[in-house]
């Protein structure tokens, strides 16, 4: 029987090598052996995704590889997440996410969504081609702390500015993340956003950096 360290390595390697079967098997073994599922998520799956980030930065992996790694990560998350004990009285952080109206491609959005899933957020995914007012309605309905929007074209990017204005008028404390090919750091700042990822590729980097920070915080006992 594999010990905990071996299972964590199997999870991490399975994500890096986009081997869904290996990840599923190791995740199930974690559950069956009664090991900490949150530790398996952070030090197994998320650790693997950090390695993927390095491969991406070194131009060894590109978006197709990262998408396959994300599938492997989700395969593990699906098994482990239900076993993470809920702390009493704790309300999970929430995020509303979607691609704005006019954009039907959502690869970058889905990679950012993965980041929130790993971090244990409650994710309200509005999907793609989302009418602008739906972001505002969903934020108000859920009182989510974060709204993340992606746009792939300049024409649709401008819609995000409207959403930010509408949300900030009602609730200035909501953190807003923007992403997509035409979005630059300057544009995100100009529109009043709090964070950005420039493209599907940058979304990968941003997502993986955030996962890295989460792991560090967890190791330091801050979360």
């Amino acid at each position, binding site marked *: 029987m594999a010990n905990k360290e071996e299972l964590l390595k199997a999870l991490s390697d399975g994500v890096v090598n986009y081997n869904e079967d290996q990840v599923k098997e190791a995740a199930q073994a974690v559950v069956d052996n009664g090991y900490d599922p949150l530790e398996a998520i952070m030090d197994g799956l998320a650790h693997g995704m950090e390695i993927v980030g390095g491969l991406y930065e070194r131009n060894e992996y590109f978006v197709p590889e990262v998408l396959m790694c994300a599938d492997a990560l989700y395969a593990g998350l699906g098994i482990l997440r239900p076993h993470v004990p809920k702390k009493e009285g704790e309300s999970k952080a929430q995020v509303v996410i979607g691609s704005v109206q006019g954009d039907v491609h959502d690869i970058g959005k889905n990679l950012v969504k993965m980041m929130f899933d790993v971090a244990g957020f409650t994710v309200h995914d509005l999907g793609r081609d989302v009418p602008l007012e739906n972001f505002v309605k969903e934020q108000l309905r859920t009182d989510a702390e974060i709204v993340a929007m992606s746009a792939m074209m300049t024409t649709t990017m401008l819609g995000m500015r409207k959403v930010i204005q509408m949300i900030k008028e009602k609730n200035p404390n909501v953190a807003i993340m923007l992403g997509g*090919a035409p979005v630059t750091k300057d544009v995100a700042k100009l529109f009043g956003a709090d964070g950005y990822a420039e493209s599907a590729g940058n979304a990968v980097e941003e997502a993986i950096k955030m996962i890295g920070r989460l792991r560090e915080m967890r190791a330091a006992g801050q979360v």
Partner: protein
Amino acid sequence: MTQFTPKERIMRLFKREPLDTMPFFSGMGMVVMPAIKKLGYHFAQVHTDANRLAQSAIWSSKLMGFDSIVVPYDMCWESEAMGNKISLYEDSEDILYPTIPEKRWKSMDEVEIPENIMELGRMPLIPQAIKIIKEQAPEYPVGAWQLGPFTQAGQILELDMILKAVFKQRDKVEQLLDKLTEMIIKIGQALQAAGADYITLREPGVAADLLSPKTFREMIKPRLTRILAAWKSPKILHICGQTDPLVEMMNECGADAISVDIKNNLVETRKKLGNHVLLFGNFDVFALPCKAETTVQEAVAAIKVNIDSGVDAVMPGCDLWPDIKEENMLAIVKTTREYGGARPSPAVGRLS
């Protein structure tokens, strides 16, 4: 030197003959709201009627001083002709291009390309619009374009599935790309037969921030080469996104000119490709002509940098966003003429 008509200017540019001034034109969508408003149309209406398509394209160029007229604008023509429904966003107050919200095919095996695709959906409108433009604005060259096979695959199937299939089902991806390659050749030839004076092959879905240069070399480049070989000149190859690792391979595909967007380092590209290659690009279509906060002076300064970086013609890095600030757009074109005209572009200047 003689003052050329826009058509003479662009045709001479492609032949690397001396010019009167640097051209400002595009191989991609170049429709602007001042033209649409002048004609009394709504944005959503210009995609579904040959005359509205032609008039909005003609007046965009006439009002702003562009050197060409380009049709069409959106990327859904072929996908719609293959049986997908489009969203036109007729009720939206925003400027939104048509999209394909749901795809009828779920797997690569299902894809069938109709023999008579030029007769289906809105496809017949493009040759009609080209004819109208040639009759009513003969002093302009007409540009048409086609998406490359990989990008087109993402218009008829889910893109993430295709991306993963590059690794998991390579044979099927290759077969699909071959089918689409044949379709793109045929459509491009039909648009050239209808009178398009130049044509652009746009393959934004293969930039180096998405696919590896290895995949580009093995899977994409042979098909782009095949398409370009089957089309008459002049023909442009444009790839959006990060193209620095790809420009040499782009140049080997057989286009008459290479066009890139703002993520490309023009100075480095010019060094890599040499002076003989026609290089077009690549100003930021939001920051310069559209962003409310950008002053005319800032737009002019940025275009000068663009020209100094070694382009042969100033071109938007992607589709021009329609809601331009008129004063910025006019200043961009004027700067191209005055600043670019004063110093012949490398490829043109070398041979003049």
